[in-house]
């Protein structure tokens, strides 16, 4: 029993001879915001893909609350309580903002065919409850006025915020956020960071990939610096920033 929220041990992943993950290990404590930084191609997104089940590692293990989830399918991993966002921003653009959030709720009776036909009332009740909750989340994050608009009509920054809201709707205990503020104007960046900062008090733990070092310094409790698939440095944001190995890697 390690008490860690998420633990990753010795992950190896090769793509056509390139070693994307080289025996990478790390752990996430409950209520922690862990930053993951490193140059492009360091393997950060690959790590997320392995943990969330989209890619199978060649070897190594992933534990969620001490349960081995290595190799589980992505949807099951989400069901267990790990959500993620995507570097290239995935949403269902054609449906409304509200529908995107509603989609993200777990255990919806209305998603089971038998309830659609034989227990419509149960589906309807839960749908209404989810809808209220979804609107609440959208109000909190300042997106409520766009609830009925198709997601594609949101600005890039708003879409990134929306994907974060979807993770919240899923009520996941662990959120893997892949570049949540990359390429976004300062005002929206602040809003998203504020939301992230509030996550531990809602009982969530976060791993955050970011290139924006200021954001990382502001928000993270702990930081890991990754390069060429391996962990190079680990510690508080200050410690890592001043680590000579990290400085060197950025200069290279």
């Amino acid at each position, binding site marked *: 029993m390690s008490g860690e929220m998420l633990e990753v041990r010795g992950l190896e992943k090769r793509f056509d001879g390139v070693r994307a993950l080289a025996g990478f290990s790390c752990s996430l404590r409950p209520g922690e915001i862990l930053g993951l930084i490193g140059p492009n191609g360091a393997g950060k997104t690959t790590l997320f893909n392995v943990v969330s089940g989209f890619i199978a590692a060649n070897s190594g293990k992933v534990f969620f609350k001490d349960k081995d989830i290595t190799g589980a399918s992505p949807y099951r991993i989400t069901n267990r309580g790990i959500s993620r966002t995507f570097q290239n*921003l*995935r949403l269902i653009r054609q*449906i409304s903002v509200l529908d995107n959030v509603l989609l993200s709720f777990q255990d919806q009776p209305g998603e089971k*065919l038998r309830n*659609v036909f034989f227990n419509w009332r149960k589906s309807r009740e839960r749908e209404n409850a989810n809808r209220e909750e979804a609107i609440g989340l959208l109000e909190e994050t300042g997106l409520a006025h766009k609830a009925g608009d198709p997601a594609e009509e949101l600005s890039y920054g708003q879409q990134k915020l929306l994907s974060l809201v979807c993770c919240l709707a899923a009520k996941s205990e662990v959120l893997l956020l892949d570049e949540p503020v990359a390429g976004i104007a300062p005002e929206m960046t602040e809003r998203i960071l504020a939301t992230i900062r509030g996550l531990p008090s809602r009982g969530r733990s976060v791993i955050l990939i970011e290139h924006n070092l200021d954001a990382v310094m502001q928000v993270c409790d702990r930081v890991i610096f990754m390069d060429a698939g391996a962990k190079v440095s680990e510690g508080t944001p200050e410690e890592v920033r001043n680590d000579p190995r990290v400085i060197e890697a950025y200069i290279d």
Partner: protein
Amino acid sequence: MEYLLHILILIGIYVILSVSLNLIAGYTGLLSIAHAAFFGVGAYVAALMALKLHSPFLINILCAIILSGLVGALVGIPSLRIRDDYFVIATFAFQVITFSVLNNWISFTGGPMGLPGIPQPTIFGLRISSHGGFLVLVGVFCALTLCVTQRIVRSPFGRVLKAIREDEVFAQSAGKNIAAYKVLVFMLGAGMAAVAGVVYAYYISFIDPTSFTVMESIFIVSIVIIGGAGSLWGPVVGAIVLVTLPELLRFVGLPSAVAANVRQILYGGLLVAFMMWRPRGFLGEYAFQREEAGK
């Protein structure tokens, strides 16, 4: 008058076929050229049961739905592993194989000679023998199909289907078991298509494999696309347009040998035209484009 009823009955049958394909292709984004196979399985199961077991209409239709649903599940399985245009080829293969079985397993299906003499259906003591009776029958099933489809697409289940259509990866990351949804939607669509097959078999009272070829599948696909994929009423519009338009040709006085060709050229041409200029069809929401993530 009989002729008009006949056209309406045909429209009804094609409405059921296209609405059910729309659920698979338009709402879930799984384009399939195997729908005539489900149509055929439904027709043959009902016909064989009526002819050999003399079982009642409702039992036959139930069995037809179940068996077609199972075939549908089979067809849906490859969609879990292969990309959409290769998947279309796979459905093509299923369609051709099904036709081949219907055409060549002579001892069971009668082969190219088909199954003649299908008796008239009796439902709750009422025998359906006239065009008017069949029109009511088709109408009831059309209404049922539309209601079922509407319930599905407006439910959270339907929301997941649309999510699968737009971005499977996102749907998975939202915790949805997309494999189950895909197979289920194929079963649903196949089951509904089987109903059309059963009505068709009883109505014409004679079926042979030539009604269930790949060309028929493509015709049903054309209806869905031209009418508008991903909308509830699109396939209805499509069915009305594509069934009546060729019939109007009769009044132009074309020799019958050529009429069949002209009919096909018409819907083939419409398919090309819509693909070039309006892939979402008349009323549709979905244009069979995959959006690249991040655009």
